[in-house]
């Protein structure tokens, strides 16, 4: 894309970020933040980093936006809006000077960076051994599989942390409020129309992820979005957090990943894939991870249990 487009996009990103951070109304700021996430996704697209663009649009703009709007709603429902103070002008002047200095130093460091070739050629040369066409997937599940394993466990840990905020007496209950919508309203229609499309898009993303942009994280997010939409439209209810089926869905990805890693210890090191079977093993991990990530993200958005469980 042309440099003019890039310059305009960068200016827009900085402007929208300023509106999100410093704008007057909190809800407007949240709206600006979601726009900001989408613009950042465009920036990644312009840098030809399509996998990152997908992740940023789905996770950075989408799920983060939904989470923050949920927190905003909770604050709003309980009290008159909490004050949204602006620091004293002396603080603002010094903070401004300090941040200008930090930004300036970072810019100097960036300009002083020696140009390097990075690891692009190494990755492209070796990814054939894993029979993967997507270099990013090769790094995520091959060369840096350890990071990805820990990342999937970080997600689970976040869910445990969120669940630890369960109010007393509600453990084993159902997360979030029961949503009800007008059966012929916009939300109910969208709740019926979009999840099937989301399901197909999600399955496509994980299926294509080994050779084209996509992968378990992007797919998991789209699948989670389909579920969240069905819940918001009142067509489905969240499961009880102690449901064994739910626990299985949460654990299957990281558990399979760990198991493969442990078996790999017999083939020359933790997470070493058995020779000749790299691709099927990687695919199995990806599919299981997509399912677990979808379940984890959907429950992270739902939050800790708020209602007692039903049929027990």
């Amino acid at each position, binding site marked *: *894309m042309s*440099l003019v487009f890039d*310059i305009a996009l*960068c200016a827009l990103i*900085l402007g929208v*970020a300023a509106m*999100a*951070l*410093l704008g007057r109304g*909190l809800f407007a*700021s*949240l709206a600006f933040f979601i726009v900001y996430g989408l613009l*950042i996704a465009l920036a990644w697209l*312009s*840098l*030809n*980093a399509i*996998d990152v663009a997908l*992740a940023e649009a789905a*996770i*950075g703009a989408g799920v*983060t936006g939904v*989470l*923050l709007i949920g*927190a905003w709603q*909770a604050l709003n*429902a*309980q009290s008159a809006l*909490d*004050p949204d*103070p*602006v*620091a004293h002008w002396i603080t603002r002047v010094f*903070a*401004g000077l*300090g*941040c200008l200095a*930090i*930004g300036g130093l*970072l*810019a100097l460091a*960036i300009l002083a960076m020696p*140009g390097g*070739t*990075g*690891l692009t050629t190494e990755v492209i040369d070796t990814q054939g051994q894993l029979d993967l066409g997507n270099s*990013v997937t090769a*790094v*995520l599940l091959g*060369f*840096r599989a350890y990071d*990805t394993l820990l990342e999937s466990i*970080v*997600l689970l*840990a*976040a869910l445990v942390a969120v669940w630890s*905020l369960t109010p007393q007496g509600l453990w084993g209950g159902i997360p979030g409020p029961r949503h009800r919508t007008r059966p012929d309203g916009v939300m109910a229609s969208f709740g019926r129309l979009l999840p099937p499309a989301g399901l197909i898009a999600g399955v496509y993303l994980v299926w294509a992820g080994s050779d084209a942009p996509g*992968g378990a*994280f992007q797919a998991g997010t789209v699948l989670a979005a389909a579920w969240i939409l069905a819940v918001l439209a009142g067509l489905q209810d969240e499961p009880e957090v102690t449901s064994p089926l739910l626990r299985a869905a949460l654990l299957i990805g990281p558990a399979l990943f760990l198991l493969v890693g442990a078996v790999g210890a017999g083939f020359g090191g933790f997470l070493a894939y058995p020779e000749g079977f790299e691709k099927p093993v990687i695919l199995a991990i990806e599919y299981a991870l997509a399912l677990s990530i979808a379940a984890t993200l959907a429950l*992270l958005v739902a939050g800790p249990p708020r209602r007692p469980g039903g049929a027990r």
Partner: protein
Amino acid sequence: MTPSLLYALTGAGLIALGLYGFVTRSHLIRRVLAFNVIGSGVFLVFGALGHEGGITDPVPQALIITGIVVALSLTAFAAAMIARYAEDGGGGLDPDAEDAG
């Protein structure tokens, strides 16, 4: 100026802007917003500097995807804590106001 440099400098700008927002606006949700803006600024610096000849280095790309997910994990926990804080009555989010009252 190459696109790589342009986006890396934009990332530096986002980090500075995010820090400024973090310091001067103390509302809990704004703090989480600022954390996310700083995070995406760091990712942009990291990814853009790995952009060479129309290709972005896949290693930073993979690490950035990991980073996005980790940032989301933190945001989810922060959002749940804010919601619980509100449900427990919370009170004003401005510590100075509480001192005065």
